[in-house]
């Protein structure tokens, strides 16, 4: 076996997220590839939380439907997930607290998790660590990798003593299972050698991308699933001299980002769909004042507050058209943690070079799922501040026009405090100097000038990526976080001798028209995959290229696709076509 999946299920408020993360981290350190994803309801205590970790000898891009080890802290965890456990898989459960009758084809591993936790650690919350130890007893690896990861996690936050207690508790779980279940067939997995890799989620990658890009100001109002960008940046604000401001609402957040950017620092805000709704008017303010701005829109299912802690790709059209009036914007949709990092860095360059708002659109699945990746390659990453005037250059300017009607549409950008370049940035339409003007000629000049910037931008951006076989029977088209499950599905389909290609649309605006046409025009079967109800990207493709999708695979239950779901739906399409 070259991979396995582990899942823990229990009530919120019992450290399930940390437990899953520690398990993942220990395997990353040992040289494995890991992908994890979590699921939790919108509450702080109670309810049902899960954390799923997939561990592989080879690169892995999403979770899988099949579970090898289920750790059940509650009866509900058994009920909800027993069907996901593969044949001859394991269920570790808290003996004395969780009731299970015999389950056919599944190895039940009753462990008195809570009892051991209290005996060895003094706290029942440590039962998760007992479960971690117990899990390792079912896997053919050295448990030291677990103890190291526990030490690292707890040492910094809670000190050496607490770390050691947690390790002792895990050891007790490990030894208990080893002794009681001697005849089990352990999961075999072998590391291809230790190599330094990151274990990082989308939000962290965005935050680090922003820091690398020189973001100096982040203003936001807490909203799942964007909040961890706020948390991460706040934790680094003194190390990197970033002002991180939690504001009174999202309206203030975006206006603060605009204000800071106007004053000359790179600024960002982040939110989810509901908060983005409040930001829409100001998106237009950034556009008409030509103030560079980066906005992260981490989607969750709507409308309204919808499913607050789940995932969906329902806001694509909203992002494309948000705010009144017509103005250019850029929308980039990273599909994995690497793209989160590099495209966030690029977003700041684009925003400043073209003096417009850039929206980075992600979703809960991408924002909060950790993946393994090589350390970011940062050599050659260059900050490009475009037409921003230096102090020296500004000194020599006469008759400064902030909104000068240039060929590229991009004008010299001065900053307050520069002596010869006093100007007005105005929410109303204005002339080249920034003075309010309602004259038809000024209006046309300024609208055209703003849109002309997109012409230049289009030539600079390669907005799509292609994976697999161009002449494949099936070409999948998608965007954003579905990338991982699609890449995994392609592996499975390959094993079944079904050839598949995958066109990932990375930039929604400017839309990669030519590349999309070149891959889709002659495609035999074009299948759209989106985590939404209406196939929003499909309609954009139709609008931009005239091409219709042959099939749509859509999911809008608030959960991400599993590779297996994609495979079975593609197989259905193929069978249907043959009939």
């Amino acid at each position, binding site marked *: 076996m070259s991979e396995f999946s582990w899942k823990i299920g229990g009530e919120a408020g019992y450290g399930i997220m940390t437990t899953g993360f520690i398990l993942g981290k220990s395997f*990353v350190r040992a040289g494995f590839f890991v992908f994890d994803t979590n699921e939790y309801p919108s509450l702080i205590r109670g309810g049902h939380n899960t954390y799923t970790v997939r561990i592989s000898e080879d690169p892995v891009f999403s979770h899988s439907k099949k579970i090898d080890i289920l750790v059940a802290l509650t009866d509900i965890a058994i009920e909800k997930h027993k069907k996901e456990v593969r044949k001859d898989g394991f269920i570790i459960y808290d003996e004395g607290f969780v009731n299970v009758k015999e389950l056919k084809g599944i190895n039940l591993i009753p462990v008195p998790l809570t009892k051991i936790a209290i005996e060895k650690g003094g706290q029942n919350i440590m039962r998760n660590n007992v479960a971690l130890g117990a899990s390792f007893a079912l896997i053919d690896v050295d448990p030291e990798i677990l103890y190291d990861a526990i030490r690292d996690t707890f040492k910094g936050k809670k000190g050496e003593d607490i770390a050691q207690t947690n390790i002792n508790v895990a050891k007790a779980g490990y030894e208990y299972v080893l002794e009681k279940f001697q005849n089990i067939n352990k999961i075999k997995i072998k590391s291809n050698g230790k190599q*330094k*890799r*990151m*274990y*990082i989620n989308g939000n962290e990658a965005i935050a*680090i991308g922003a*820091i*690398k*890009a*020189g973001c*100096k*100001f982040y203003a936001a109002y807490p909203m799942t699933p964007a909040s961890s960008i706020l948390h991460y940046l706040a934790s680094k*604000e*003194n190390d*990197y*001299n*970033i*002002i991180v*401001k939690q*504001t*009174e*609402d999202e*309206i*203030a*957040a975006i*206006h*603060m*980002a*605009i*204000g*800071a*950017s*106007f*004053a*000359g*620092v790179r*600024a960002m805000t982040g939110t989810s769909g509901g908060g983005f709704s409040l930001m829409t*008017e*100001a998106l237009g*303010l950034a556009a008409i*004042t030509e103030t560079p701005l980066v906005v992260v829109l981490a989607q969750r299912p709507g409308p309204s507050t919808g499913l607050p802690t789940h995932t969906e790709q329902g806001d694509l059209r909203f992002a494309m058209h948000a705010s009144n009036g017509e103005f250019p914007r850029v929308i980039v949709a990273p599909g994995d943690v690497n793209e989160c990092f590099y495209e966030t860095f690029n977003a700041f360059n684009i925003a400043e070079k073209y003096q417009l708002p850039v929206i980075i659109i992600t979703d809960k699945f991408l924002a909060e799922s950790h993946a393994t990746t090589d*350390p970011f390659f*940062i050599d050659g990453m260059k*900050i490009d501040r475009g037409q921003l005037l230096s102090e020296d250059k500004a000194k020599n300017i006469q008759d400064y026009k902030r909104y000068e009607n240039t060929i590229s549409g991009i004008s010299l950008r001065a*900053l*307050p*405090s520069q*002596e*010869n*370049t*006093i*100007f*007005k*940035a*105005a*929410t*109303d339409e204005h002339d080249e100097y920034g*003075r*309010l003007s309602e004259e038809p000629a000024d209006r046309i000049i300024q609208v055209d000038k703003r849109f002309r910037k997109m012409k230049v931008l289009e030539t600079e951006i390669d907005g799509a990526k292609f994976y697999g076989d161009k002449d494949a029977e099936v070409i999948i088209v998608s965007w954003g976080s579905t990338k991982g499950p699609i890449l995994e599905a392609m592996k499975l389909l390959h094993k079944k001798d079904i050839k598949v290609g995958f066109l990932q649309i990375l930039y929604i605006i400017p839309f990669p028209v030519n590349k999309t046409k070149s891959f889709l025009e002659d495609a035999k079967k074009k299948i759209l995959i989106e985590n939404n109800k209406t196939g929003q990207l499909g309609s954009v493709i139709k609008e931009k290229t005239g091409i219709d999708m042959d099939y749509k695979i859509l999911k809008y239950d608030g959960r991400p696709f599993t590779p297996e779901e994609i495979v079975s739906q593609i197989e259905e399409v193929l069978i249907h076509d043959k009939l």
Partner: protein
Amino acid sequence: MTSFEELTTKERPTWCPGCGDWGILTALKKALVELNLPKHQVVVVAGIGCSGHLPQWINTYAFHSLHGRALPVAQAIKLANHELNVIAVGGDGDGYGIGMGHFIHAMRRNVNITYIVHDNQIYGLTTGQASPTSEKGFKTKSTPHGQIEPPVNPIALALSADCSFVARGFAGDVPHLVKLIVQGIQHKGFALIDVLQPCVTFNYLNTFDYFYRRIYKLEEDSSYDPTNKQEAFKRAFEWGERIPIGLFYKENRKTYEDELPQISQMPLVKQKIDFVDIKNLIEEMC
């Protein structure tokens, strides 16, 4: 030396003749002259309304923001470059209506900016509807049977929101208003200057004459102590036969910027970003 002339733009304001806004613009320019602030070191931030046009007619840097949103923009400009003098202007609808949330939080935050509110107790630019400070019973286009709600009390709100400088001026007394604006800009912290600003076109009740008959200056009352919050509250609720103007309250406390080690060495905008070393951050993720 900063002169009144260099602060004056070629374009003439389009406010109604006799509008209180003229007095505020004049007072602001005079205050900048008195403080000798270089014009490129000043940013005036406005919202929407008749007051929102003010930045067009003063020769400094300016950001004309959305309705109610002068304060978040102004605060962030100051945080990004605290060497600038940032002055936000707005109306009563802008600041005490649609922007009320920002108003309260800006005061408790205490970013070192000055906020001048053109308080004419009516919506002017939208041609005469009731505003948050319109008096109860006031008849307007939107309240033809009389305003039902009592008005908000900006001075009392400011005092309760920990505003560190609370003043009220009158557009009909420019020399007095100049003094208040000078003090407000000099004050280290958030300074509110609510300005009674008669709208000569739409407000038939709160006219220049109405205020000339009622206002008195707090500083002329030798018993008044502007560091006593309880006293300030008492005067804040004085409205009717006598209306106080002047400095209601002032306290010295740390500004928001004072609490930020990020900018203790130099303004954010002056910090280099060409190469940010993120090796540690990558390492932490491994």
